[in-house]
């Protein structure tokens, strides 16, 4: 793969959000897959099944794939009544394997255990742009719900014809349709007889309303949970193929360095080792990972570094390199005309996703057919990347994504899989490439750094008279503040990023909402208004108001607090999820150490599909967000990452966990939205506002307190 230019990556965060592909890109030949499998599809598809590749050679690649508007593209019922669901979405810990199965089970009146989810396999599942942007629940959920309800319609139709009875008189239960009069029953498997359901999905089909849900809306446990607690689940990093070799890639010492001289002779002498060189791409393969690492270490390389900005000049650089945007005279006029003005700047550092499973890829060539197993949030995107790298038709490339050791927006790319495929092609054997923790820190991508400037003013009535907001580089997600303002001017200024940057849980919403919520807090304080009341006065969004009030109540916002303690509140809406967060902190009077005593959050994302897993996402967002809020930051100098390890880059641990109170607001009258992102946005500003409340110090940079101590003067 071409190394991304700095310019190309400048818009990564939003690029993925806006990326629209042609309506349908066809994965190959699912029909022949079904032919191959006959009725026994479920038995074959115990996934993470590396043997899957054995079947591939027999597939006829010329057949047309199943159209996305047919039921069969999404759901198959075999002769034994086992239901298989196909989706291009992938599981990285959001527990959508469970929630999507619940949605289908609900419509088909079967237990969740009757359903097998086939996910993120470019050969077997319909095209999918990727698992990001909290889109699974609002988009894939309804799609599968309609497909399942269409199956239900078909089944009842078939049974009513068989029995010559009225369609509406039939009852469905646990995989059977019951005759209204004579006690007979037919199983789904008997009705479908293993045939593909080529009927179209009925877009107008009646679905079960959330008020009637019996399986959706309940806390079903992770469907394959046992595999994880026994160590049986095979992540890509755990997979092994016969004759497989381990690959390692030679990396530059710094971002943007170019290879000037290389000597691979010593490495080549090692038994079992192959060195592969293609321009700047140099890799080794060996029968075990240790030999591969030794071989890599024996390659002598000299690199030429290119001058580039370091962390200490980062924010000035982002501002200087930012694009210019129009000013609005009326906004400046309204600002100048007010007695209560506030102008602040916020700095946001780069942070790393640090997924616990570093990037991993396993590649196997069989003739001109390539199969790549890799932990990516975009299997179809990686398929396209591989198509570009090898110049072979997409139909010859299969990308498979087994449930992976997390992503948080950090695994949109497929580097390890592509590297494995390059090495495997040269060496003629399957190759697995596992990134080290250091590689993951240095050569993945980061949440963008940014500079945010906010200027706002209040009218005499306590309403916002003007609002001016500029974000340099960190992104435009969530940039519009939810508050009403007399006049406003909001701009995202793209800039040049010294480091490779990309998506991260909630994208730039975390940074933008941090700035909104600090600014609103400080204006409330200037105006001597309670920060909750001030927000409510300037908000019209009922859903945001509802979570603010729910959080305040759960937290006890109006309670008194001991000296040295501070309360803070913040709220935000991201992709259909509404969150408000309250924090209580204690600042030690002499050491100035901060202790986060408790956090409360109310979250609403429409009708809840799985309360326990939703709560887990909310808790996970809040605690992960605590890292970026308090101490996480990527340190770098002239293109070199200075803290590329879990010893030097601090992430939240057990002892960082404060008391948490989570309120889930279930709105059965509203469509379900995603929850893996929105709850992260409230934690940083709530804590910052609580520290301000306790000390009068404004901490306007993320992370706020890398050493945990509040400076004396804000």
């Amino acid at each position, binding site marked *: 793969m071409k190394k991304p230019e700095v310019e190309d990556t400048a818009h990564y965060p939003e690029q993925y959000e806006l990326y629209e592909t042609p309506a349908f890109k066809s994965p190959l030949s699912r029909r022949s897959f079904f032919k191959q499998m006959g009725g026994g599809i479920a038995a074959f598809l115990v996934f993470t099944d590396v043997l899957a590749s054995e079947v591939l050679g027999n597939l006829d690649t010329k057949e047309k794939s199943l159209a996305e508007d047919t039921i069969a593209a999404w759901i198959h019922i075999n002769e034994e009544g086992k239901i298989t669901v196909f989706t291009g979405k992938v599981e990285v810990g959001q527990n959508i394997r469970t929630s999507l199965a619940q949605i289908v089970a609900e419509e088909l009146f079967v237990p969740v255990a009757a359903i097998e989810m086939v996910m993120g396999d470019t050969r077997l599942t319909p095209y999918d742009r990727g698992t990001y942007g909290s889109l699974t629940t609002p988009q894939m959920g309804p799609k599968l719900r309609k497909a399942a309800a269409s199956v239900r319609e078909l089944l009842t139709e078939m049974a009513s014809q068989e029995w010559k009875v009225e369609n509406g008189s039939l009852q469905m239960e646990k995989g059977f349709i019951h005759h209204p009069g004579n006690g007979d029953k037919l199983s789904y498997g008997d009705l479908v007889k293993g045939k593909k359901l080529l009927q179209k999905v009925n877009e107008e089909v009646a679905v079960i309303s959330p008020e009637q849900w019996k399986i959706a809306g309940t806390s079903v446990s*992770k469907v394959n949970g046992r595999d*994880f*607690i026994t160590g049986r689940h095979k992540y890509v990093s755990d997979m092994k193929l016969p004759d497989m070799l381990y690959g390692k890639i030679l990396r530059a010492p710094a971002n943007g360095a170019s290879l000037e001289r290389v000597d691979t002779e010593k490495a080549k002498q090692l038994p079992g080792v192959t060195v592969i060189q293609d321009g700047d791409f140099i890799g080794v393969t060996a029968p*075990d990972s240790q030999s591969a690492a030794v071989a890599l270490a024996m390659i002598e390389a000299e690199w030429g570094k290119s001058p580039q900005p370091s962390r200490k000049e980062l924010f000035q650089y982002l501002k200087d390199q930012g694009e210019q945007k129009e000013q609005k005279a009326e906004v400046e006029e309204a600002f100048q005309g007010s007695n209560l003005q506030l102008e602040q700047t916020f700095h946001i550092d780069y942070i790393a996703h640090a997924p616990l499973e*570093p990037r991993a890829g396993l590649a196997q060539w069989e003739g001109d057919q390539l199969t790549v197993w890799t932990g990516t949030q975009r299997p179809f995107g990686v398929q396209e990347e591989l198509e570009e790298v090898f110049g072979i038709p997409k139909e010859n490339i299969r990308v498979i994504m087994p449930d992976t050791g997390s992503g948080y927006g950090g695994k949109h790319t497929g580097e390890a899989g592509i590297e494995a495929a390059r090495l495997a092609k040269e060496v003629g054997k399957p190759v697995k490439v596992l990134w080290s923790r250091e590689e993951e820190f240095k050569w993945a991508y980061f949440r963008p750094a940014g500079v945010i400037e906010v200027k706002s003013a209040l009218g005499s009535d306590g309403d916002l008279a003007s609002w001016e907001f500029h974000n340099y580089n960190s992104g435009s997600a969530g940039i519009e503040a939810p508050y009403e303002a007399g006049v406003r001017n909001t701009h995202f200024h793209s800039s040049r990023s010294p480091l490779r940057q990309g998506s991260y849980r909630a994208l730039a919403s975390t940074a933008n909402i941090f700035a909104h919520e600090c600014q609103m807090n400080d204006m409330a304080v200037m105006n001597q208004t309670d920060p909750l009341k001030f927000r409510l006065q300037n908000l019209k969004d009922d859903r945001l108001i509802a979570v603010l009030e729910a959080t305040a109540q759960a937290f006890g916002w109006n309670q008194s607090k001991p000296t040295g303690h501070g309360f803070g509140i913040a709220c935000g809406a991201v992709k259909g999820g509404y969150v408000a967060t309250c924090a209580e902190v204690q600042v030690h009077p002499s050491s100035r150490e901060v202790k986060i005593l408790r956090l409360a959050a109310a979250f609403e994302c429409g009708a809840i599909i799985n309360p326990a897993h939703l709560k887990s996402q909310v808790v996970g967002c809040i605690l992960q967000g605590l890292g970026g809020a308090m101490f996480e930051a990527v340190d770098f100098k002239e293109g070199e990452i200075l803290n590329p390890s879990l010893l030097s880059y601090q992430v939240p641990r057990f*002892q960082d966990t404060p008391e948490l109170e989570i309120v889930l607001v279930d709105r059965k009258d509203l469509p379900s939205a995603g929850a893996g992102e929105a709850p992260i946005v409230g934690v940083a500003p709530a804590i910052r506002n609580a520290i301000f409340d306790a000390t009068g110090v404004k901490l306007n940079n993320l992370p706020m307190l890398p050493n945990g101590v509040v400076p004396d003067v804000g």
Partner: protein
Amino acid sequence: MKINVNDKDYTVKATGNPSLLEVLREQMDLTGTKYGCGEGACGACKVLINGTPAISCITPVASVQDKKVTTVEGLEKNGRLHAVQQVFLEEDVFQCGYCAPGMIMSAVALVEKNPNPSKQEIMESMQGNICRCCTYPQIIHAISKAGKI
């Protein structure tokens, strides 16, 4: 050399002084034990050596000769999960699950020593294990129940 893992003797290659983690995963296909950082900072690779939790990524395999190694695969006895696994399963603790084996091995060591740990004791004892999904509260809750089974 010979090592004993999950009550079975294995002959493994120790040339080049590989880590216990590498040997478990590559030579024995015991892939439940995970690589997370390679420097003992995350706990994903935890195993028990003579019942004491140890970080297998920085433990040379040569050092476990004549000792008993237990990995997550060795906890299940005759199809019955260890009490800690059982409670982690019932409490439905995990998101991505990659930290699970290391968490469970640390928790087993803790609960076998102290069946009723306080929240503070759990947090201190588990501090070396990272869950990037941050399911810490669920893990604390599960461990506090495990000793009572």
